């Protein structure tokens, strides 16, 4: 059993999602944290732990003094962008579990307009880091890097664009039920998917996540304390991070088996720490900066064998009512792309029973962060 299993997510908060929001990232973070604390029924002055992304453009001290937090005795940051969301939540939970703090807050706030949010577009024209092995040849963006792995995956396993479309359409259908989703009122048909413009072949526009401004936060405390609070707790049953041997972030073309990404190492620890396994998971939020990451994650986290992730998505299997509903609020592709932090909140809502695409009996809820980078995952459960 994981050390975090005596902790729970007891509050969630999020700002509006949009493009070109007026508020700064700092303001969005503060708003999300205040909303999460209000949701939890915990006063800001009780917060004594913080965990956030290294990509945040401001320091923890700014948040703490703006929101009116207490004396902070634990603060940490996790790198690798989309790989970090479950990592910051899990580290906050570990800090509570080990007594380094009593009430921890984890958050992500992002603005599309911020240069710091789009590392690929703000490089020097002379490169001495690992970009000299890929970017110099015009492999510029995250989508190009994942498209390279996707093409190989399709070649090795016979996966098709129809499989990728299954992922995009499932997310969109779920977003169409979620009034907070950026794509709430925009259905997506298979024809629209197939006719969409290319971004990096074999990936088209709808294989890509959205670009979103917004902030989200969660509050974590002990399960004992959670039992006295307003919300139904989402127990942090298991948590893992994964930086596999010989991995190279995003351009993972240089290992013996590039299609076996960080999900596998993360899953090994995640399930080893858990009293449940993949067969017990009722609903999953799988990080989706790009549609093929869902297919790889289905394999990595043990829902099917290698090469079977494409066919796994057929026949509505990852839609509400299917055998494993995935990304039930629309996730990065159709709700909002905030480096996957919105997936954590949806994982919590499924345990609470308050999702707009609620899975009946969702007592075990998986959340993962970015495949393709050093990553992290959470198994959330009911208090039992």
């Amino acid at each position, binding site marked *: 059993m994981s050390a975090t299993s005596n902790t729970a997510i007891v509050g969630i908060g999020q700002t509006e999602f949009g493009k070109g929001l007026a508020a700064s990232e700092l303001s969005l973070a503060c708003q999300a944290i205040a909303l999460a604390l209000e949701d939890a029924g915990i006063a800001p002055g009780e917060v004594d732990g913080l965990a956030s992304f290294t990509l945040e453009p401001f320091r923890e001290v700014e948040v703490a003094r703006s929101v009116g937090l207490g004396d902070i005795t634990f603060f940490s940051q996790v790198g690798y962008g989309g790989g970090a969301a479950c990592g910051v939540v899990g580290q906050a939970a570990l800090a509570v579990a080990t007594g380094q703090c009593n009430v921890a807050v984890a958050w992500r706030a992002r603005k599309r307009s911020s240069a710091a949010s789009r590392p690929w*577009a*703000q*490089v*020097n*024209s*002379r*490169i*001495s880091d*690992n*970009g*000299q*092995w*890929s*970017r*110099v*040849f*015009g*492999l*510029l*963006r995250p989508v*190009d890097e994942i*498209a*390279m*792995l996707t*093409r*190989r995956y399709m*070649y090795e396993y016979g996966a098709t664009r129809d499989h990728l479309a299954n992922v995009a359409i499932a997310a969109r259908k779920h977003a169409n039920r979620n009034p907070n989703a950026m794509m709430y009122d925009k259905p997506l048909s298979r024809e629209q998917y197939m006719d969409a*413009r*290319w*971004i*990096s*072949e*074999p990936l088209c526009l709808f294989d890509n996540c959205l670009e979103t401004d917004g902030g989200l936060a969660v509050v974590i405390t002990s399960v004992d304390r959670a039992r006295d609070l307003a919300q139904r707790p989402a127990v942090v049953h298991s948590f893992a991070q994964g930086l596999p041997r*010989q991995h*190279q972030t995003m*351009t993972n*073309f*240089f290992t*013996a088996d590039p299609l076996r990404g960080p999900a596998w190492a993360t899953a090994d620890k995640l399930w080893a720490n858990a009293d449940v396994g993949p067969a017990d998971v009722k609903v999953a939020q799988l990080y989706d900066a790009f549609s093929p990451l869902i297919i790889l994650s289905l394999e990595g986290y043990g829902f099917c064998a290698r090469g079977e992730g494409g066919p796994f998505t057929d026949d509505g299997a990852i839609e509400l009512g299917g055998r494993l509903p995935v990304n039930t609020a629309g996730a990065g592709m159709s709700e909002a792309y905030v480096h996957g932090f919105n997936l954590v909140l949806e994982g919590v809502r499924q345990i609470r029973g308050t999702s707009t695409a609620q899975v009946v009996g969702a007592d075990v809820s998986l959340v993962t962060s970015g495949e393709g980078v050093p990553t992290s995952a959470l198994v959330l459960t009911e208090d039992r």
Partner: protein
Amino acid sequence: MSESAFLLPDLDDNEALAFWEGCAAGELRVQRCVRCEWVAHPPRPMCPQCQSTAREWIATSGRGTIWSYVVAHPPLLAAYSALAPYNVIVVELDDPPAVRFVGNLVTSADGEINEIDPHSIAIGEPVRVAFASIGGVALPRWVRA
């Protein structure tokens, strides 16, 4: 960065300088451990097999096969957008085995990266290295073998 510029390796401060010097000399080099001869690409300061810091650069055959490829479309940095759609390939070398390089498939060393019909490219195609001069830097490109 300058909006019109291609991205190029920094030849002033770069631990992989010997690789780019090799390109200028017409060699595709990889880094090898002096002690155990394990080949590492991309290069690194220590051998992950034996922890030796004694590193050397050796020439490869420059021959391999296409392992994967993409066709990039805008939005892209301006210099690349002007060439889009263009191909980017990953080549797996024949020797040393399992060493892979990112590059571009062209018809000749100084050809543009967008001149080959991307839909004619196939995984498994044999290719060999050729060196283009871009902004005063020798870059490895790949031509059909």
